[in-house]
């Protein structure tokens, strides 16, 4: 009996194809919009999370000045020096590794190939702090580090550009005017923190200071915090120490800043999550507008439908049967619309995800929720006009204009 009702409902839907199409259009668009927005938003969140986590967990980044760049904190906030690095290493509890960094951009040349890249000077602690593995070769020895020898470890991008076919370890190439020997290659990390992390040449810091930057300044210190310690309390002790070393009086502002990568990551994740929610909400409004569309079509066709209800009642249908028919019709329509919407959303996200460079993540939950909501909207807006008609006297329903 129920099966028959469904068959009859489908027959009615096919008989009034245009009306049915207009009715479900709102649902189709609404469902497609909600699912597309939320799926893309979740993909974006995942992408951000992935990028941030590639920066390393429990890492504090210390820079001169306030905020990124060197502005603030007096006329010019001085850079750090090796003394600061040693002090942090020796005096702060809970520090797993401290790696200074001095950077310069430079042209790397080997035979006919050249490549503009970043030369980073650091200590062997860098590889501990970053938990960055080598695929081949070795890290420089303490003696080489001490002497500032021109040995280098190259990232995957540099390797591909300068050594497309040969094994780079043991080979030499020139960075700016400096001839240096490749002693190791880094594992690929890919796009991270909005730049290509693999596009780098890493050398002992002394070599970079002497031959590239021309001073003993350290622009950037990276501190890896031991997991057993609170990052925030380690951060506070470092701040205390650096204020002292940089002679900042009480009441004066810091002329350096310490960033907790986890904090950044949480902030960014929060932001993308809010964006997803906002986009989802906008899309949800379109779903509701779709529902109102259904109601409009239902109200427009209510004269025709009321007469139909009148005829059915007059030839002996009880109100419950007529309502059941309308309910099933509304459910079938809404479900069809919902399904079409889901398929559209799937196609749209598959096309758009690569374009805006977010991964495609299929989330069954949002699909289910959007589908259920659409079904509910269809039922509510399709059923209630019918219920009013079915409560009329058959003769009043027939006379309806």
């Amino acid at each position: 009996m129920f099966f028959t009702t469904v068959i009859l409902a489908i027959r009615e839907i096919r008989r009034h194809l245009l009306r049915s199409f207009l009715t479900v259009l709102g649902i189709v668009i609404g469902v497609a919009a909600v699912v597309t927005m939320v799926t893309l938003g979740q993909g974006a969140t995942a992408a951000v999370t992935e990028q941030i986590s590639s920066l390393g967990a429990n890492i504090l980044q210390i820079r001169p000045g306030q905020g990124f760049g060197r502005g603030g904190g007096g006329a010019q906030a001085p850079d750090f020096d090796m003394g600061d690095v040693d002090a942090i290493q020796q005096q702060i509890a809970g520090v797993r590794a401290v790696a200074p960094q001095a950077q310069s951009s430079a042209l790397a040349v080997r035979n006919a190939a050249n490549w503009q890249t970043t030369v980073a000077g650091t200590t062997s602690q860098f590889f501990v702090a970053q938990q960055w593995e080598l695929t081949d070769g070795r890290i420089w020895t303490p003696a080489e580090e001490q002497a500032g020898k021109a040995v280098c470890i190259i990232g995957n991008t540099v390797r591909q550009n300068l050594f497309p076919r040969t094994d780079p370890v043991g080979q030499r190439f020139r960075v700016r005017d400096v001839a240096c020997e490749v002693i190791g290659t880094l594992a690929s990390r890919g796009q991270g923190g909005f730049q290509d992390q693999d596009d780098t040449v890493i050398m002992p810091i002394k070599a970079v200071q002497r031959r590239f930057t021309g001073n003993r300044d350290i622009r950037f210190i990276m501190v890896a915090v031991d997991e057993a310690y609170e990052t925030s309390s380690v951060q506070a002790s470092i701040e205390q120490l650096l204020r002292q070393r940089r002679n900042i009086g009480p009441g004066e502002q810091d002329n350096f800043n310490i960033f907790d990568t986890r904090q950044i990551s949480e902030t960014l994740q929060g932001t993308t999550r809010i964006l997803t929610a906002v986009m989802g909400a906008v899309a949800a409004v379109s779903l509701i507008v779709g529902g109102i569309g259904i109601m409009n079509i239902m109200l427009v066709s209510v004269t025709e439908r009321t007469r139909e209800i009148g005829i059915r009642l007059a030839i002996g249908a009880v109100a419950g049967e007529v309502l059941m028919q309308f309910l099933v019709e509304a459910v079938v329509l809404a479900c069809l619309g919902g399904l079409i919407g889901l398929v559209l959303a799937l196609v749209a996200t598959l096309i758009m995800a690569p374009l805006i460079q977010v991964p495609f993540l299929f989330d069954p939950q949002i699909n289910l929720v959007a589908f259920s909501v659409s079904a509910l909207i269809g039922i509510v807006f399709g059923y209630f006009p019918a219920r009013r008609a079915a409560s009329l006297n058959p003769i009043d329903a027939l006379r309806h204009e």
Partner: protein
Amino acid sequence: MAADPIIQLRGVTKTYGAGATAFQALKGIDLHVEAGDFVAVMGPSGSGKSTAMNILGCLDVPTGGSFRFKGVSVERLDRDQRALLRRRYLGFVFQGFNLLARTSALENVELPLLYRGEDKAKRRELAMAALDKVGLTQWWDHTPAELSGGQQQRVAIARAIVTSPDVLLADEPTGNLDTRTSVEIMELLTGLNRDAGITVLMVTHEPEMAEYARTIVHFRDGLVEKVEQVGAGVPA
């Protein structure tokens, strides 16, 4: 056996609206119809014929008085019980056809059977038989828009008789039709009355159509003015 009249009205009134705009369309109708009779209802426009037919067809309820159908007091039944009464015993032909649009003649005729719970094969068989009785076998798959007025009216009649009702009510079944088609419809109704023993009540304005009936009830101003016995034989 002196059976109860199939239809018995006593002091039936019907008031439309309420308060200052209230209008009494029926002012106290007394009427009985024997099973197997062929009744024509006549009277000036606005005299309450359709109102009375709707009450007889259990499509509407009287404001006052009593209506017994096969001995059952209809005013005591609820909506659904009246619907079941219509489904089981009554066929109704409306003045304006009232067929489902975009729906084939066959499906229109099948509709009452659907609510009776007949299976598909039975529905088709009975509906085709009814279409055959009204002479529309070859038009079974045409929608109302593809049928003439007379053909639509015959589909409506087929739909009304497909359940083999005890009583067929027809409100101006020939109202919109030319004389030739009207005569065809009247012959159809007469045949149903004679051969299938269906009690027929029919509203008409045309005296020629009323001549097909055995009993003519005249309405005036919401009252039954007179009841005439005409035609060859009053049913036993």
